[in-house]
Structures are given as C-alpha cells and as structure tokens.
C-alpha cells in the first residue's frame, strides 16, 4: 500500500513514540499523500501495520477534517469563512469561486480539478480574507488575485 520510501519514513516515525499507535496520524498523512485519499483498504493496511483494530483507524479518519475517505479534486480550495475573514468579505469570495468552478462548497468539479470547501479559522486573520489550496496559504485575497490563481491551476 505504501511505497518503500514512505514505509521507511513511517518506520522512522514509529520510533519516536513508545507506542506504535501514536504514529497513526502521520501514517494516514503518508497514505493520503500517496493516494490522494484514504480508502477502506488503506485503513486496513495501516491498522495491520500499527497493530491496532481497523475500527479504530476508521474512527480516527472520520474524526479529523483533514483526512479524506473519498477522492477529492486535484486542487482543494479551502476558503476561511470565520470571523475576521467574514468581516472582510469571505462570503462573496466563496460564491465567486463557486461560480468560476461551477461547484458549491463541499463539491468537486466534474473534471476532478477542483474541490471547494468553506473552512474554519486557518490562523491568518491579519491577512484576511484568505484561503488554502492544498498545502499553500494565499492571503490578502481580492477577486483579481483569486481569478489569477484559478487560471494558474487550469
């Protein structure tokens, strides 16, 4: 399930903790990095690898918002809509992005390119409004800036 390089990485991470189970979140990230999401089979694989029950892995995957149990778009657009961003216009930005990508928050575009999410505070309140696309923060957003970004992702 995990390629060799990632398996080695996981083995190294496991050594940081007195119990293997503590490597669960890191292990799930490795799976997700490789496959884009965490399938039932991958959960079973991780459960076996860390010697914990499958049900435990499933419970953890479903608890945390950053783990995906279904495939998502190549570009995960996550717009912060919490207080500071809302005060500075995150709502119109969400509608604008939705229109540009023909999707609503929570949906993935048909071509699999974009997933749009409204998310909670990302700790960028001083540079609001902002969004995260995959691992990267984009701050002090304007409609023009967003359009340029979307263009670059096509």
């Amino acid at each position, binding site marked *: 399930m995990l390629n060799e390089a990632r398996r080695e990485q996981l083995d190294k991470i496991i050594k940081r903790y007195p119990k293997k*189970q503590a490597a669960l979140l890191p292990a799930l990230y490795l799976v997700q990095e490789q496959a884009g999401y965490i399938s039932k089979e991958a959960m079973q694989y991780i459960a076996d690898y860390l010697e914990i029950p499958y049900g435990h892995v499933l419970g953890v995957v479903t608890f945390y918002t950053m783990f995906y149990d279904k495939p998502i778009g190549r570009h995960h657009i996550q717009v912060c809509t919490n207080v500071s961003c809302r005060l500075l216009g995150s709502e119109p930005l969400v509608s604008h992005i939705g229109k540009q990508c023909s999707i609503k928050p929570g949906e993935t575009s048909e071509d699999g390119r974009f997933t749009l999410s409204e998310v909670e505070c990302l700790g960028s309140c001083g540079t609001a409004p902002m969004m995260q696309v995959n691992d990267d923060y984009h701050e002090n957003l304007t409609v023009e800036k967003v359009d340029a970004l979307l263009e670059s992702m096509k």
Partner: protein
Amino acid sequence: MTDTDIKYLLPGIPDLHKINVYEKEGGYGALKKALGMKPDDVIEEVKKSNLRGRGGACFPAGLKWSFMPKNSEKPKYLCVNADEGEPGTFKDREIIEHNPHALIEGTLIASYAMGVTTAYVYIRGEYVKWMKILEAAIEEAYDKKYIGKNIAGSKYSVDMYVHRGAGAYICGEESSLMNSLEGERGYPRVKPPFPAQYGLWGCPTTINNVETLANVPVIINNGADWYIKIGVEKHPGTLLYGVSGHVNNPGVFELPTGVLLTDLIYKYGGGVRSGKKLKAVIPGGSSTPILRGDSIEGVRMDADSLMEAGSSIGTGGVIVMDEDTDIPDIIERISRFYHHESCGQCTPCREGTGWMEKIIKRINRGEGKLKDLDVLLDVANNIEGNTICALGDAAAWPVQSAIKRFRDEFEAKIDVEKTAAA
C-alpha cells in the same frame, strides 16, 4: 514600565530563524546557563517571573512545571501546543516563522527543568509551511548538539519531534491534544487526574503554548527581576497581540502586557477602516466575551484589566468590528464554529451548540420569536460549566455577552407583534 521597544519574541533580526544568526545574537546561551543550574532552581526562577500561559488560560507556567513529580519511574513528557486554532489568533506561527530557535531553546530549558525525556510539538495540520520551518530548525539544533544525547556537553539528554494535527480545533485543548498525539480521536479527558500525574501514555506530562515557552530564554538570561518589570507585574512580559478585522493596519504586534486596547486599535492597528466608527471588539480570540466599542476607554490588555471589563485576555487576538457590522450575524458564525468543532462527547455542548446556532440562524432569517433570546441564554447557561473541557464555555460566552451588550440588535430582527402571540 511601558517600554514598548522591548521585543524579544519578534525582534525583527533578519534570518533569525537560522541557527548561526540566532547563536550570534546570544541564542542558546540561556540553555547553557540553565544546564548549569539545578532543575528546581530553573523552575523557581520561572515561578518568580510570574510568566503566565499564553494559550488563553493565563495559568502560571512555573507553577505548572512544579506539578511534575520529581521522582518518577515513568518517562516524563512535554507537549508544545502549536495547535493555534482559536479564531482571531495568528501569533504562534510568527514565532515559528521568525524565531523558531527561541521556541526550541525554551522547550529545552523547560524539559531540563522538569526532567523530560521527549518533547513533542503538536502543530495544527494546516500549518505545513511552519511545520517545515520548525523541523528544519530542530534539525539544525540536533546537528549542533543542543538536542539529543548529552545536550550542550551536559549529562542531560532529550529528544524533540514535531507531530502534525489534522484539522480539529478541539486538539488545542491539552488533554485532547494528548489523546490525538496517542493516535486517538481528539476527545478531551476528564480531570483529575491532571496531565502532570497522568498524561501521555499515562506518564507525567506538561503542555505549554508556543509563546509561553518562547518567553523562557529571556527569563533565564536576564532573570525574573528583569522580566517582571515588563508590562503588568501580575501578568508580565510582552504579548503578541493579533489585530484583525476592520482596521487599517492588521497584524501581530509585540508589546508589553497591559497596553491600552484603544492603542492597539488606533495606534498600532491604524484605526477603523474607511474612517468608520468602532462598534465592537472581541479582545482575545472568538471565545472571549464581546465588548461594546463605547466601553473600552482605559481598558488594558492584561488578565485582570480585561476581566474587570467583562471579558478575557484569551490569546490576545483582537477582532475589530466597525459600525456597519451585523453583530447577530457574527455571533451566528461563531456559534457555527463551536458547533462544528464540538467533539460530541458531552451532551450539553454537543446538543447545546447546535441549538444555539439554529436559534440565532432563525433570528437572522427574520423568523425569530421574542422568547428566543431567553431560550438562547438558557441554553448557553446550561452549557457553561457543565462539560469536560472549556469548549462548552467558549461557545457560551460569545452568545451570553452579545445578548447582554447588543440585545437591541437581536430584538431589531424579531418581529415583536407577530411573535408576541405565538
């Protein structure tokens, strides 16, 4: 003392994140000094400094450290809380980005003082960029033998690792953080037992916020007597204030505790945007009670002063709202947040946060009833104090304070005549 020039967390030195630059500025000198002291003396110095936690609860750091058992057969752990998630808070990432070695040095001093063998930095999952910066800094410190076996030539050994969270606000709560680190769902634990007795894997554990630990090197270097003179004596040091919302110049400002809230907004934050009037301020992150703009004259940013004003210093994240702000709309957004982030373990919080969101939503839709405000307060009052962790209180305070201080705005959305009969 109101020396606003003291900046030790974010001194603005170029490339301070690199270990060579940090060392040139005297970095890791405090660690060497501490390693020459008895661990208990280090704790004593931090106690004397009155350093209080920067994660929101303001608990005295030295006292917290002193709860760790001296003789433990089990290993002891330190968790660095970098799960920064309270809306309006964006300060710890500044330390990690610009001064990561101050955090590492503070962590190592704290670890030595408590006899910790492993320190884990639990960082929020979205902070990928900052995680990489911190990991690079930790690697540098390992290479220079400040971390690892026999650090800085002493007999003391300690490891330090970064552990990435996965998007749950609740994991900033210390017991939930430990569960998450153990590979569990992030459910808070019932206290007692407290972490110092029964923490990670049942071993003695202390959890400190990033900013708290980054304060430790200057305390050891300059002494508690020096430190206690910065800002307010009962809550000394500098704070990283995050100013956001409707201000001209948002950002993080390092200033002593006790700075005037009005100075933060007008002097440092550049005043309210577009020359508008101030309507409201949330002074310390979204959970802290909202204040009316016309009530903040003379209010200072420290634990006691804000408590007197009917709010709390929290994380020092100041959210500024201008005269056009729809307060019930903002409170609905805050309630949605706490509902979404409630872990679901305690009934009052799981059910109550959902009800609060629904009722405020109904009021905002123009379908509110006159008695809704009393129902809201009733729900909030029944969440507060009745849950395992403080998320329930955090959800209740914004609602309670907004109804108390902006009741007219809620009532204006309710058609009194139409609903009086209902």
